[in-house]
């Protein structure tokens, strides 16, 4: 039944994608959906791009197993949007399709800046993509109820994983290369509506079980958590007292990356340009804040509700990391409302929503990176800023294919590793490589090409190097490499606390040490354009 509902989603989104293909004419359509989306539409799509399966199933699971500490993720993910709200209008006014448009606006050596931005965009996206696709592979076994050692219609769990990753990869390549920004945006909107509807139904049913008294739900959750008395307090998962100061700094480092990373995520930035003007961009971020906020508040009910109604033992029995908590909760409350059939129906619905969520988020990521490859690298570096529009769109479609295939390949390769850290790393990279460059490009008069390039590469390589030298890679209890290998010198698992200041430092040092002269007139032009919208790219046809 999950498969049936999901098939309906696929058919509808395919239809929309084909329609989008017909109405997509040039770069404005392919990269920015013709800039014709309204604020609320784009707000839904922003929320759709942002709320991944990791946050739906993952955060509900973390809350269900670690209680309060899971909630911290939700808060970081939401608060980050205020920074986005402050930057969105400036970026919409100053840019055209990508972050690189803003970074290279007054740079003397543009190809260098464009290349750096494209490298950073593709790296962040691919890391995030691989994490999502591996998650999808793991999820399908759980959704279809295939346990290790069993088979489902003659498919072993291992084969099911690979098949899922391949299928998700094919779908996302199709959405992006065929439908471009228009198709992908509609996929996001449909997914966001489904996800909000699913979580709202679940939340209402769960709270209804406790007479709409959250305090009672928390009490019941605490009692069935396996850690009564501590479950609602900080410290079960992050910065455990046993880990001392290092553990606590690691936790702070994670919090920094979450709050500063969002405004630099390529698939979020790409969405700023799909609306007619800065005001609509502001409206869309406000909508996203409302939706994302409501969603993360509801994950509280899902997570604590799962512990209260399903119980910690039953959750860990199904999946030790708790990713199935929301699904088990759906089945449990469905059953209590309408018997076993109700349980099956609600489980199928929430399962289909989870699939839709994964598919939509990976599509957004592929779109962002292929846009950057085609527009920044092909259009502005290889073709010196003078490509034919049709040529550039063709390259974008082809890049979507290449990036898609590459990520599928990587995801299949690492499918059995614990890659959950990749999501946090993608946020840390976005916060270190992209955010400092964007902020300095908009607000620092002296900032120049060398500064951008140093900042972007410094942040990117800095965060990757720190993770490679951290317990994530070697020498820790959950390291990727087996025990005897240990070359970790950096104690924190999350690099943000060090890599973000380091990136700022690189950007400033690069600017001051190079002999390149900044162009004050171009800066005045940029700030005038960013703040007023004079000369900003308008929609091709009036909306």
């Amino acid at each position, binding site marked *: 039944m999950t498969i049936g509902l999901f098939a309906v989603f696929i058919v509808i989104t395919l239809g929309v994608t084909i329609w989008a293909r017909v109405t997509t004419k040039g770069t404005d359509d392919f990269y920015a959906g013709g800039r014709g989306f309204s604020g609320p539409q784009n707000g839904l799509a922003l929320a759709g791009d942002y709320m991944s399966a990791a946050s739906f199933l993952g955060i509900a699971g973390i809350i269900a197993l670690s209680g*309060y500490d899971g*909630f*911290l993720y939700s*808060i*970081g993910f*939401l*608060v980050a*949007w*205020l*920074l986005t*709200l*402050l930057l969105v209008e400036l970026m919409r006014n100053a840019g055209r399709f990508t972050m690189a448009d803003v970074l290279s606006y007054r740079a003397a050596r543009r190809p260098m800046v464009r290349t750096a931005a494209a490298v950073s965009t593709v790296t962040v996206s691919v890391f995030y993509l691989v994490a999502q696709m591996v998650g999808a592979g793991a999820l399908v076994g759980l959704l279809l109820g295939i346990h290790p050692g069993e088979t489902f219609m003659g498919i072993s769990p291992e084969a099911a994983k690979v098949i899922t990753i391949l299928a998700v990869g094919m779908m996302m390549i199709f959405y992006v290369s065929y439908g471009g920004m228009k198709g992908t945006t509609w996929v996001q909107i449909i997914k966001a509506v489904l996800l909000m509807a699913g979580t709202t139904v679940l939340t209402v049913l769960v709270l209804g079980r406790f007479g709409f*008294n*959250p*305090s*009672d739900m*928390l*009490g019941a959750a*605490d009692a069935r958590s396996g850690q009564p008395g501590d479950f*609602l*307090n*900080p*410290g079960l998962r992050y*910065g455990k*007292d046993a880990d001392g100061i290092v553990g*606590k700094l690691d*936790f*702070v480092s994670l*919090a920094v990356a979450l*709050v500063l990373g969002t405004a630099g995520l390529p698939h979020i930035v790409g969405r700023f340009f799909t609306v007619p003007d800065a*005001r609509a961009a*502001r409206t869309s*971020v*406000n909508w996203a*804040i*409302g939706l994302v*906020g409501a969603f*993360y*508040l509801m994950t509280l009910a899902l997570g604590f509700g799962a512990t209260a109604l399903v119980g910690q033992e039953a959750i860990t029995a199904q999946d030790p990391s708790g990713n199935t908590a929301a699904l088990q909760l759906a089945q449990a409350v469905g059953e209590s409302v309408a018997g076993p059939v109700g349980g099956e129906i609600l489980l199928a619905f929430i399962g289909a929503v989870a699939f839709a969520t994964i598919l939509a988020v990976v599509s957004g990521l592929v779109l962002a990176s292929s846009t950057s490859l085609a527009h920044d690298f092909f259009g502005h570096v290889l073709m010196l800023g003078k490509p034919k529009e049709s040529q550039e769109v063709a390259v974008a479609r082809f890049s979507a294919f290449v990036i898609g295939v590459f990520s599928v390949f990587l995801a299949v390769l690492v499918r059995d590793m614990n890659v959950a850290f990749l999501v946090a790393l993608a946020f840390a990279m976005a916060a270190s490589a992209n955010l400092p460059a964007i902020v300095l490009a908009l607000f620092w008069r002296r900032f120049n090409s060398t500064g951008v390039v140093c900042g972007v590469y410094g942040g990117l390589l800095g965060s990757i190097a720190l993770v490679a030298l951290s317990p994530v890679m070697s020498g820790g209890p959950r390291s990727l490499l087996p025990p005897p290998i240990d070359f970790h010198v950096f104690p924190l698992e999350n690099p943000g606390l060090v890599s973000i200041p380091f990136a700022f430092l690189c950007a400033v040092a690069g600017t001051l040490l190079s002999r390149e002269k900044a162009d004050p*007139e171009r800066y*005045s*032009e940029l*700030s*005038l354009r960013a*703040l*007023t*919208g*004079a*000369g900003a790219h308008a929609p091709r046809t009036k909306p």
Partner: protein
Amino acid sequence: MQADDLAGLAADERFRLLKTRFRRLALTIVGAFLGWYFLYIALSAFARDFMALPAIGNVNVALLLGVLQFVSTFVLAWRYTRYARRMLDPLSAELRDEAGQRQAERERERRILAERHRIENWTRR
């Protein structure tokens, strides 16, 4: 757009006012939300006994402050939007129109010049 047009507008009193207002607003909001967020994170990491105190029923201080983070985010977004509508949008619309007018004027001058050039060339032939 011509550089001297923009230089004129960029030096305009209204643009300076817009810039100051935006920067003051942005700094206030960034300061408020980052300060409050990191205070909360620091409390979660280092003041666990305080966070564990019961507030309302089974809701402890930690959960209460967490929900307040949501509330403060909504409130700050709303305040920003309201302020921007009242104090920033009218100024920026005015400047944008003016920049558009200047550009149109320059465009007209350029066209007249080109036309004159064409006529001169024609009569000379």
